[in-house]
């Protein structure tokens, strides 16, 4: 079974500063990895995903993430945060097996607060 750990429940950064949100996964096979953002009272919006190839993936709004297999990590980064980035960020893993099961397993989320 797969699992995701987001060790930081809350992160606070100043506007314009760089950001890293941590994510580690557990899965014995080749994982498909995702970062989602959730704004208050809204559904999840996909920031980026990794299926294969270049381990550094670019997403929307300047976000990127790096898949490091040896460390089982998929940390999210942004060079310069904006106040509008304040939200909850979820890391997720899917164990696409080639069948019809494409369920996502989510981490507990990291609440990002960007201060002026």
């Amino acid at each position: 079974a797969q699992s995701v750990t987001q060790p930081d429940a809350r992160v606070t950064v100043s506007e314009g500063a760089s950001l890293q949100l941590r994510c580690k996964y557990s899965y014995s096979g080749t994982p498909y990895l995702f970062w989602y953002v959730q704004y208050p009272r809204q559904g999840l919006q996909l920031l980026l995903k990794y299926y294969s190839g270049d381990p550094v993936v670019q997403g929307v709004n300047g976000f990127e993430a790096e898949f490091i297999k040896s460390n089982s990590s998929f940390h999210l980064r942004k060079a310069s945060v904006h106040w509008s980035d304040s939200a909850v960020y979820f890391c997720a893993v899917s164990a696409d097996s080639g069948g019809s099961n494409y369920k996502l397993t989510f981490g507990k989320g990291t609440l990002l607060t960007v201060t002026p």
Partner: protein
Amino acid sequence: GPKVLQIPSHQIIDMGQMVTLNCDPVSNHLYFYWYKQILGQQMEFLVNFYNGKVMEKSKLFKDQFSVERPDGSYFTLKIQPTALEDSAVYFCASSLQGSDYTFGSGTRLLVI
């Protein structure tokens, strides 16, 4: 882009009553999902549905839960009877293939 619509956005219901949550998925999508999110916690998989059948359900998908998509209409989650612990936000998602989901905005269910 294409959207998943969830109706209603909020629902308050008395414990023991039946509730049906409706999801209008993206029109050409083939896979449908329900996830449950208790306030402040992570999203948890409930069930996925493909080709008219439940493919997998989690331990959270109790016997009181059922899903269907009659004749390509709404994808529904029915809870009968409801319990207090069913209070949560229920998110529907759909995908054409793989894990490229489109999520709805959720139905906030409060069982009192």
